[in-house]
Every structure is written in C-alpha cells, then in structure tokens.
C-alpha cells in the first residue's frame, strides 16, 4: 500500500514496529512504533502519559512527511 500510494505521487510515512520488514518491502519514510500488538499506544502507561506518547508519534510522523529524503530513512531519533 505504501508503495502504491507513493507511485501515485503522494508521500507516505510508514509507521510500524518491525522496521527491518518495512525496509525490505521498500518504504522510504519509516517511523518506528511501540510494539506489534499496540503500535501507537502503550497499555503500560497511564492515560495522560499515553496521550503524550501518541501525540509525539503522530508529530514525528508529520515531521517525517515534510522531510526530504533520498532513499530509505528510518526516523529513529
């Protein structure tokens, strides 16, 4: 899906936990997430902390979307 949408000229950020698979399948902008059963959340945190985490991930993804890349980049900083 990532590759098809990009082929249509729209940049994509792939948010996923197992970034090596994302690299293998050919995503260009990759944002690592928390864990496979809960990529965008963390049930170990309380509600306020989790909201902060989720916002942070979304902001990171939006930032990645704006970033120019030449080839595959994992935004793991």
């Amino acid at each position, binding site marked *: 899906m990532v590759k098809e949408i990009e082929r249509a000229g729209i940049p994509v950020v792939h948010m996923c936990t*197992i970034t*090596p698979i994302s690299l293998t399948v050919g995503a260009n902008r990759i944002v690592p997430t928390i864990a496979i059963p809960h990529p965008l959340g963390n049930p170990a945190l309380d509600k306020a902390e989790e909201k902060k985490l989720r916002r942070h991930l979304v902001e990171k993804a939006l930032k990645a979307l704006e970033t120019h890349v030449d080839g595959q980049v994992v935004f793991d900083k």
Partner: protein
Amino acid sequence: MKLELGYIQIKDIVFGNESKISNGVLTVDKAPIEALAKEDERIKSVTLDIAKPGESVRITPVKDVIEPRCKVEGDCDIFPGTIGSVKMAGFGKTHVCKGMAVVTAGKIVGFQEGIIDMQGPGADYTPFSKLLNLVCVFEPVDGLKQHDYEEAVRFAGFKIAKYIGELSKDVKPDTTETFEVCNFKENMEKFKGLPRVGYVHMLQSQGLLHDTYVYGVDAKKILPTLMYPTEVFDGAIVSGNCVSACDKNPTYVHMNNPVVVDLFKQHGKTINFCAHIITNENVYLADKQRSSNFTAKLCEMLALDAVIITEEGFGNPDADLIMNCTKIEKKGIKTVLVTDEYAGRDGGSQSLADADPLGNACVTAGNANEVIVLPKLDKVIGTLDYVNKIAGGNENSMRADGTIEIEIQAITGATSEVGFGKLTATY
C-alpha cells in the same frame, strides 16, 4: 553426563478401574485424572476420550499434545520449573510412554486452536494421528478469562501427562537410547577436527497466548542462553500456545525435537554438536535486536562453524529469523534456516515477511496456505463450532455435506518448523 531414555511402547489404551501399564496396555482410571484437573478451581470439568490411529475421529480445538514421561533417576521431576521443582534436567534416566500422547482440548480462543484427524487426508498432515491419544476436553468455570483458561489447561495437561508417565516408572523399557553430553573443554578435546555445529532454537514468545516456557520462565523474558541438548527430553521447554496450529511446537515436539535428535545422531561422527542455543521472538523491535545480537554473540564465543536455525510461527518472527541469520552469517558462521511458508493458496506469493541474500540455505516445511478438503468423520471430540473461524478457515469452510475445506494451517503440526512432520520437498 548422560541421559538414558527408556522407551515403553504403548500398544493400546483402555478405561478401567485402576490406572496401570501392563504388557504395553495403558489402563486409565478416569477419577484420579478428573481430580487432578479439578485441583485447579478454574476448571469446571474434564471429559476424557480415546482416539486411535485409523478411527473416524476428529479432535478440535486442540490446544497441546504432550508425551507422558517419568524421571527414574536424576535430580529433576519431569517438566522442571513448570510443575516440577526447579532443578536441572537432562541427565539420569527418563521413561517415555511411546506411541501415545495426552491431547488437551477446549475452546480457549476457539478460532486459534488446531484440528487432529485420525483418518483420511487430514491424518496424513498431522504427526499426532499416528498416536494413541488420551484426549482431555476441559470446560472452564463461568466467566473465566481466556488467558486464565489457557494457563489452567496448560498445567492440567502437564499434570495428567506426568500422572500417566509415572505409571511407567517400574515398567522395564522395551528399548533404551543414551545421549551423552560433555562440558566445553572435554568437547573441544574429544571432537577435535570435526565441524562445530550449533542449533539456534527460536521459541514462540509473541504473547497473547503465543507463548513458550523454559523451566517455567516465560520465554519472552529470557535472553538467549545455552542448554545441554538433553534438557528438552525432560520437558524443560513447554508450549503455552493457542495459535495457528500448523507451525507451533506442541510440548510433545519440544520433548522429541527432531533437530536435536538428528544432530545427536551425527554427533562425534560427521559433526561436533556442541551448542543448543535458545532464543525468543518478541513483539518489540529492541527485543528482536537484542536477542539476535546475543544469539550471534554466543555462536561467535563458541567458535561455531555452522548453525541450524529453526523458527516457530510466522509473520513478524520472520524478522527474527532473518536477523539471526544475517548477524550469525556476518560472524563468518554458516547458517541453514528451517521455516514454513505463507505463500498464498496458489503458492505464488512471497513466502516470508522478510528476506535477505545471506539466507541462501533454507529448508521449507511446506506452504501453510495450501487448501485441503477434509471428509466428514463419524465422531468429533470437542466441537466443530469454530471451524469456519479457525486460522486457515473461512465462512464457507464447513460445507453442507459435512466436509471441510480449509488451509492446512488449521491442522496441528502440519508445517512443523522443526521438521516434525511428513511434508518434504526435493530441489
């Protein structure tokens, strides 16, 4: 150090008033088994049945298959750390009730457990159709959560297998087999000149009822570590899985791990089988990175020449498999991977979720998406309620004439990634 396995061939199972093994016939008194199961207040009832090879019987939903064994000499109990005390396994003497299994069943998740057919084409895909099966179907108390139900059935299965195993304690084995292991220094001296071969044994640890336990420790909490390869024969590793049944290792398979058995057969002849390394398949990327780093480090420290890596399960564990492969290969150590495939019903899709050119020696245990039609069988132990939802099934699986069209994914042990099955391929 030695472990002697004494095999007692079980030729028949019958129900009776007194549990015993006599002339190869296992007589089972239901009452003590029911009492064992109900020691756990989470279990409302257990129904016992016997399924024999060739009978028109279908068992589903199957949770685990367990081989009854008994320690005759040695420190530990069978299933150390799980139901036995936490002592080291893998030496002394162990009796094995060969030709039979305890099969645990119940609708824990329902759509994730497996099918064992005792007859017909489905029976050809599961190694457990060749065994005399003492089947235990567990009903939970009302309102019990799935993970509690899973744990209760898991422990009940081990207790029942231990109970049956102990009936063999004073029986003279029909045959014996001895496995000898030695320490690092002796091993280096004794087998000098032979290629040093290790086994990297990946354990399912994704959680949410995809679990394996090592001496009672949840495998997701371990760092890769070393075992004497004989430890598995005493039940040091057990299954806590309730997921796509074709490629999870039931406890029976851990106790009879064919990679360990076959490496032992070549040990001291063509190879020096000097390391059994266990590792996990967790759902956090950092865990995958850490565990594969440690696995490669252990292979390097042990100066291995080659390793066999077996996967358990599919999907994201494919990433663990490839990480293990590439990191070990980059240490200059050859790898052979054993996995199965999810290549679509026509076999034309990509087989694994991840890949790397260094993974250039790979053994497949078959395509789990392959479709099979199972005939209507006369008797069902358990329930067919979940056949349309089971992993590998669809809303049309259960047909009006009683036949079932389903992927072999649903059949317990069909694509065993340690090679505990019959599917083969020629290249």
